[in-house]
């Protein structure tokens, strides 16, 4: 079974944001080497990018772990940030707790979680106030 899994790991660093681009580009290259369709590659790239941005703006970074099997792509983004206080609100399009500074940079439009949901087949959020958040995104191949 382990013969049929590809694992990738990236650190999400809030000081060097171009690393997020590298992670996305690395995942895209891997998926196309596996013959995953361009549409699916695009969905994974966008959802993963949104999750990485969240980790940067709310938690000063985190980690991304990707597992690819013949059936699905699982992206796990975890951080040690403040956690999500109100999950229902966080899922509302347009709702954001991002600071004014972050918004001025063009982020924090409140579309992160709704977009992640839109581009994935399954999404799980595990969050504890004061401890951190882990977002699991699954896209079926």
């Amino acid at each position, binding site marked *: 079974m382990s*013969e*049929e*899994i*590809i694992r990738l790991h990236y650190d999400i660093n809030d000081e060097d944001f171009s690393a997020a*681009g590298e992670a*996305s*580009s690395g995942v*895209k*290259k*891997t998926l*196309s*080497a*596996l*013959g*995953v369709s*361009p*549409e699916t*590659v*695009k969905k994974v*790239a*966008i959802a993963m*990018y949104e999750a990485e941005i969240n980790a940067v703006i709310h938690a000063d970074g985190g980690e991304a772990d990707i597992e*690819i*099997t*013949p059936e699905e792509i699982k992206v796990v983004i975890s951080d040690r940030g403040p956690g999500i206080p109100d999950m229902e609100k966080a899922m509302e399009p347009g709702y954001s707790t991002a600071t004014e500074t972050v918004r001025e940079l063009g982020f924090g439009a409140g579309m992160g979680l709704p977009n992640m949901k839109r581009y994935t087949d399954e999404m799980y959020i595990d969050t504890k106030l004061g401890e951190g958040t882990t977002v699991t995104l699954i896209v079926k*191949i």
Partner: protein
Amino acid sequence: MAAYYHSIVLDEKLCMGCTNCIKRCPTEAIRVHDGKARIFNEKCIDCGECVRTCPYHAKVAQTDSLDIMANYKYTIALPAPTLYMQYDLKFTRQHVVTALKMLGFDAVYEVARGAEIVTAVTDQYMEEHRENLPLISSACPAVVRLLQARFPSLLPRLLPIKSPMEISAMNARKEFCQQNPGVKSSEVGVFFISPCAAKMTGVRNPIELKKSNVNGVFSIKSVYFKLLKQMSKLKEPEDLLKAGYKGVRWASIGGEARALKTQNVLSVDGIQNVVRIFEQLEDDKLDDVDFIEACACTGGCLGGPLTVENLYVARNRQRQHRDTTPTILEPVAPEEMENCMFETYPQYLDVTTLDADRTEAIKKLRRMNEICEELPKLDCGACGAPSCRALSEDIVRGKANVTDCVFVLRQKVRDLAREMMILEGLMPSDSSKEKENEE
């Protein structure tokens, strides 16, 4: 995938087997095997980077010989806007165009005019398709190939309007036959004068229609001196111009974008920069732009591999042309804008998938990662592949061996030597000597 013609080929006699080209190729399409560079046809996008890089001029962009003009009763020249900027400013556009006729062409149709038509059609198309912005220009054939091979998810954003060259060829032929009653379309040869290697491929394997309207491609290099000779004799140039500066400035990066109605545009030149912009666009990070103009060559067509003049000198000349040329000479007429949309669409050319069976592909990728771990990660190129990662991929695809790596080979030789020394120590040397003595 059908056999794909490429304009860029190797002159084996000149190739020294160095690593300059493999390191610069943006699609990792070149390997050095047995001391000679080999181009993987399916990966090459004809960008011309290797033609520029090769210190021994072993990479050649094939273009047609001027002799093929003899195959046609009538001939039309289509000069790329870049041609004007190859010459000293004392030679005006009228000089260049008249000299083309002196060279034997029956008519000249400026591709700058075709460019103005593309702009008019683009403005109209963008107003009707606001939902699909940003659109990506389809004018650079190497960029279109790059999309097909590496960014298939962006293909729906490709502007489905034929290139200025194709539109010029179509209109030139139509006009010529109208002006000369009795002339059959098949008797007319239309020839593009090109700064670009990829245009040759674009004529043999057009992406936007089944059969190109262009009958041959001549490099700017091949006509440069011939035109210069004619121009130095020329006293009274004819006025055959139809294009204004709006079309002429397409020669440079930014020219196509600046001609548009919308100015929320992004212009990117140099193939590596284009790749970075497309990566961003693919992640939905560039949704606030209307139009992306992308040129594989630095500086745009003025930086093309088949030009003569230095890009920066040519660019200065273009600015001088701006001061002496009206923006528009003749507005584009509705009949010029007919049949400009794509008739066929470029498809995804999958060159990355390791195996059609996904489980098999995963196994291969794992093996590739394991092999890569063993390699020194110096990306020295001595094995003939551009990077350790590329070598690992070649090994998995059965195109190379791990011992192609000089460092792995050195280690293996060292291990072997050590093993032999150990074995030597284990040999029952004395008894064998005794045997020899007995005999």
